[in-house]
């Protein structure tokens, strides 16, 4: 039997590319997303190309009360979990509308922590498995233009860091992924700088390579490590006056 990987937020572009790579490598897939039936065409494609099993799971990361049951039903079969669910609000709207801010926190942090807590407990007990969490470079420093999104990713990054330390002795690999801006459905309509914006295929390939090499934290594309290194070290009294896009 193949190893299985659970992808949370399986409809995201990065998740779909990751699904293709894991499928090609012979993993069975558990795809969890809202309106998961929208993945039917994608699933048919993967099944034609690869000799694997694929299960769909109707999943809303903000519906915390459903998490335990969903996880209990499948946990025996899952070898690794990829957290790809995420929500990028319009910063200006989020500043004025608490519900948008709250939803951002719930998708990117509260819901993620709720589910990964369950996963962590199982994997710790079993002493195997992996968790890949997709955070963001936006979590490395709060910028005027997207700090509501960024702060939720900062929290997720800190959570994953702690989780990694906790599970290290249990043989569970926890990897934090910090992509820069990526051309996806989430960023469609935004004005993105083509010089620093990646395509999901590239990001997924980087993630998979880093997973095989058991990396702890990766920036993708890799040049973001340098950009964020510099960004993090700009003194606050200068940073607050800067407009960075």
């Amino acid at each position, binding site marked *: 039997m193949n190893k299985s990987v659970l992808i949370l937020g399986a409809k995201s572009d990065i998740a779909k590319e990751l699904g293709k790579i894991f499928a090609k490598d012979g993993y069975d897939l558990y795809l969890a997303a809202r309106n998961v039936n*929208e993945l039917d*065409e994608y699933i*048919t*494609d993967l099944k*034609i190309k690869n000799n694997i099993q694929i299960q769909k799971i109707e999943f809303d990361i903000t519906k915390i009360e459903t998490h335990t049951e969903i996880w209990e039903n499948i946990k025996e079969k899952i070898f690794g979990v990829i957290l790809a669910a995420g929500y990028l609000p319009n910063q200006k709207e989020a500043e004025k509308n608490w519900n948008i801010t709250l939803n951002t926190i719930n998708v990117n942090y509260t819901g993620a922590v709720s589910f990964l807590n369950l996963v962590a407990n199982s994997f710790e007990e079993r002493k195997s498995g992996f968790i890949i969490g997709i955070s963001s470079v936006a979590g490395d420093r709060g910028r005027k233009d997207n700090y509501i999104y960024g702060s939720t990713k900062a929290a997720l990054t800190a959570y994953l860091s702690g989780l990694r330390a906790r599970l290290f002795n249990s043989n569970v690999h926890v990897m934090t992924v910090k992509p820069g801006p990526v051309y996806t*459905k989430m960023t469609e309509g935004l004005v993105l700088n*083509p010089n620093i914006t990646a395509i999901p295929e590239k990001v997924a390939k980087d993630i998979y390579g880093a997973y095989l090499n058991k990396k702890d934290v990766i920036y993708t594309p890799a040049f973001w490590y340098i950009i964020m290194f510099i960004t993090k070290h700009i003194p606050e009294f200068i940073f607050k006056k800067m407009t960075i896009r």
Partner: protein
Amino acid sequence: MKTFSWGLYPKYNGKIINIYSKNDLIKYFNTYSNVIPYGNGRSYGDSAISDYMLASKKMNYFISFDEKNGILKCQSGVLLSEILDFIVPRGWFLSITPGTKLITIGGAIASDVHGKNHHKEGCFSNSVIELSLMLPNGDVIKVKNGDEMFLATCGGMGLTGYILDATIKLKKINSQFINQYVIKNKNLLQTFESFEKYANFTYSVAWIDCLADKKNLGKSIIMVGEFANDFDLEYKEKKKLNVPFLFPDFALNTYSVKLFNYMYYNVIENSIDRPIKVHYDKFFYPLDSINNWNRIYGKNGFTQYQFIIPKDKSFDALSEILYEIHISGKGSFLSVLKLYGKENNNYLSFPIEGYSLALDFKIDNDIFDFLDKLDKIVLKYGGRIYLTKDARLNKETFYKAYQKLDYFLKIRNQVDPNKKINSLQSRRLGL
């Protein structure tokens, strides 16, 4: 944002929008005018450039595969390379393939592309069993090979609607390798004789040295080949080269192109008796191994001029055109000559029975006047220009060259009377 196709010319303020589903399409058809279906942006000129370019790349799923009979159904945004990665290890190949695999299947149909086997096996539409088309009003129709709508859509430059998916017939192979034979020819007459002599090979193509001196006009290397029979189908990934930046404008000039052609001609060896075994990637897609090769022409870009002349007049026409190019001293890095078989019934497909020559020209001040001059010669001999490569053809020449145009315009008028779908090219050509 400035958008452009493979030739980097023209550059236009259009917007590329990813299409994820039928519903997306209906939405954009209803909200925007001046839309055009867009695949992988590998047509050379302005045929896929408009205000809103509806990109199919996110609709790139296989729908079904019949391994026994080699029949594949997939969405229109699937790249030929994605098809090959999947089918070659299973003993199948594309029935028809152009010189790049980095195009979508929707694009292949809209351009009704052809390849080295046109003289034997025709255009891409020959391998299309049926397709689904979304009309500009949002209706989705099934179009079968031979239908009136099929004849308008294959080669129709995306102007009849949006191709959603297609079912294609593949070709059985026993190897991923081609047995290739090379024939060197000293001039145009020899080149034509070789083409006729080796016409029984399934695949054939010639590289012409456009800058050879006057008595050697038409000097060429012909490559012919057949799939091998060694049952080696295992996939191996290869490294790619890249052109990481735009070349300075002076990099390609008469002298550097002459040098390249000279070296190419003299390094390669004649091998009529003993074939060389080459991988299908190298045989069919030599330029795909160099990412962004279009950048060697510099920031102003280039245009590819591809024309075809009926067989009985090909020799005279080519002699005249090669002579004009020789006098002009305009270097073409790549010049490809090819023999074509019978014309199909599609309204706007390019191929007719005869010979076609494709030349790259760097965009500069007087190139368009020069190409207008070549147009006159092409027209005089009853030939035509390939729309997929074109960025500058004028309406009058186009109307004279494409005799089945009226049938196309009739269908176009039925499905899209307000010309919601249009490209810079269709506006220029009155399509």
